[in-house]
């Protein structure tokens, strides 16, 4: 067993701290942007008539910021913690790490400034970054591949990699390919329906081939570490990974069903999407069986609770997906708020809660403390975030059905807008809950980092 000093030499604590802190800051900014935009739909937008704060532009910051500001920062930070620990090797270079850290914040800042102030945006959802920035992001992702690829490569010279290693290895290769494909091909090498097919693949692959594999990879690392026992079944781990790797990349076109994309591509996407549900279910069974006998830990251990809550939300989202991916459901729910509800359950409810759980596990340890500053803040944040996102999900799902059937009914358009308003007000209230949760969470982080005495475990039980 490596001593604390060895681990300190293995993991660059500074990089973890910097990325996780920036990720949390962007999480709050992204939430604020989403909330601000939701005020427009409530008819009480505070900055109307100010060009650079136009709701349409703010919404692009919300989605692009979620991808690059929040998720990439958080995941990179957590990878700096997890990868050296489970491989036993340091990352390629600390200097490269700091360079990448600054480059990432600069890229996000440039995106925000060009979208808000210069109106330079691309109409690729999640990839609204101006096109001239995209090659730089691809380059960044290649550095990211080398940075984390080095320890993984070294470790696999010695023997098989742990599950996390498979997910991270595949993700490191996928992500630059995905960003290149999604942002540059539809702009320079294809148009119209062909571009649409590429864009839909991008929308999905950024979730499926970046966010999902890193997040599952980290789950496979943190859950057994926290519970101090191995995963229930190695076979299921293998099945889940290879099922995901094979079927997930084919899902993309399900974002544009009933579109002018040739039907064979649409059918294959529907088929692959249903197949993914089976892969996901196998992963989930594995996690649930690992929990067996340790479930009482969920009562005391907030990080673990975040992780299992997220896992259940993940399964709900994927179960929902198996239905609404069908061409029948699509007739009603496509283009409605149903989809927005789905997007938030997975992005906030699952990946958001997971990274918060992981960060809450890592954070006190980074500062040599045994526990977070306040149990109350920690619990309060959890419940607000969990209930908030669930409320938002149910609300938007219902709104989606109302909108979908209203449109089919050929009522005047403005009716569907008016019918949606109560749902949109409620969404803003759920947003306030989520934001309050995030602020409490961030306060707890700040207090933990700055607390003078080492917080000890006894304090937590008190």
């Amino acid at each position, binding site marked *: 067993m490596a001593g604390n000093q060895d681990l300190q030499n293995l993991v660059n604590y500074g990089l973890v701290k910097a990325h996780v802190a920036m990720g949390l800051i962007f999480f709050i900014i992204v939430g604020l942007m989403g909330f601000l935009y939701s005020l427009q739909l409530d008819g009480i937008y505070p900055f109307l008539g100010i060009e650079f704060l136009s709701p349409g532009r703010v919404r692009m910051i919300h989605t692009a910021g979620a991808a690059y500001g929040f998720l990439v920062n958080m995941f990179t930070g957590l990878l700096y913690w997890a990868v050296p620990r489970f491989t036993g090797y340091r990352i390629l270079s600390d200097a490269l790490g700091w360079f990448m850290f600054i480059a990432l914040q600069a890229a996000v800042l440039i995106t925000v400034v060009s979208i808000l102030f210069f109106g*330079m945006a691309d109409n690729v959802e999640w990839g609204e970054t101006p096109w001239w920035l995209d090659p730089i992001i691809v380059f960044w992702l290649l550095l990211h591949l080398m940075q984390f690829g080095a320890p993984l490569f070294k470790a696999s010279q010695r023997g098989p990699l742990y599950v996390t290693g498979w997910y991270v290895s595949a993700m490191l290769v996928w992500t630059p390919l995905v960003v290149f494909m999604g942002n540059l091909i539809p*702009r320079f090498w294809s148009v119209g329906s062909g571009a649409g097919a590429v864009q839909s693949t991008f929308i999905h692959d950024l979730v499926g081939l970046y966010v999902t594999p890193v997040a599952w990879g980290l789950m496979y690392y943190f859950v057994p570490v926290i519970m101090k026992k191995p995963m229930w079944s190695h076979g299921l781990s293998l099945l889940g990974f290879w099922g995901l790797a094979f079927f997930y990349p084919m899902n993309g076109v399900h974002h544009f069903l009933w*579109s002018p994309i040739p039907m064979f591509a649409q059918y*294959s996407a529907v088929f692959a999407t249903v197949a993914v549900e089976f892969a996901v279910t196998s992963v989930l069974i594995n996690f649930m069986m690992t929990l067996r006998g340790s479930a009482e830990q969920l009562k005391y251990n907030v990080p673990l609770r975040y992780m299992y809550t997220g896992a259940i939300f993940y399964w709900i989202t994927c179960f929902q997906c198996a239905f609404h991916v069908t061409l029948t459901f699509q007739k009603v729910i496509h283009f409605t708020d149903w989809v927005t509800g789905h997007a938030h359950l997975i992005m906030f409810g699952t990946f958001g809660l997971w990274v918060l759980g992981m960060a809450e596990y890592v954070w006190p340890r980074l500062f040599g403390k045994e526990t977070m500053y306040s149990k109350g803040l920690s619990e309060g944040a959890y419940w607000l975030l969990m209930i908030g996102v669930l409320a938002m999900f149910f609300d938007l799902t219902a709104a989606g059905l109302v909108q979908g059937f209203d449109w089919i009914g*050929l009522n005047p358009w403005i009716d569907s807008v008016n019918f949606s308003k109560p749902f949109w007000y409620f969404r803003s209230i759920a947003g306030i809950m989520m934001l309050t949760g995030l602020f409490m969470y961030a306060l707890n982080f700040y207090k933990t980092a700055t607390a003078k005495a080492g917080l000890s475990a006894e304090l937590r039980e008190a």
Partner: protein
Amino acid sequence: MGKMERFSFVALVAGILFFLFADFISWALPMFVMKDIPKKSVADLAAEAISKNTSAWSDFNKLYRYYPEQFKKFCEYEDMYSGSGKIEEAECKPNEKTFAKALKVGHRWYVAEGCWNCHSQMVRPVSNETLRFGIPGVSNTVSYPSEFNNELQAPVLWGTKRVGQDLIREAAVHNVGWHVAHLYNPQSTSPGSVMPPYPWYFEKDSKGNIVPNARGLALLTYIMWLGSWEVKPPESFRMEAKQ
């Protein structure tokens, strides 16, 4: 089994092979199937609209007649991001060059304002959409691949969310005056609308009236162009003409 769990195996098989296979099915094959559909540049689109004398072309002429001062400013307007330069004074009237520039600049700001986050550009063959969008008998067809095969649809503007209506059959729905009033303040034409106002596409002219500015003219041209290739004279009109 051990081999399957190595970096190089995962990176090559899952990372590259599976990815390429999926891309082959999801978009390389569809792109191949549609490769014979001609790809139009913005200049082609403008030339086509003029030669067919579509509603977009007549709307563009109307904008020129209603707002001559601003039209001059529009000719001088330069925009790096969409690659649009100045147009000489001699050529500053409705023609292929100015029309193409208006479409390009209009498209650029349509994207920059995130209009596509609230408006789709795709009429699906289901859910009564062909009845809802456009005007029955005039511009209410389902979307088909070739109408998207042009430079202004790269990346494609289908969108994923509708707060407002689909706009790909917008051409025949409203006239110039309505669009001007609506863009300046959507509540004025559509009480209860949640579309934001866009006053920065407007300015005061020499008489103190609020009129579209250079960017505004381009954006309006672009919106009124959407679907103009599908606008046909109404059927009743044709039948009366025959008798």
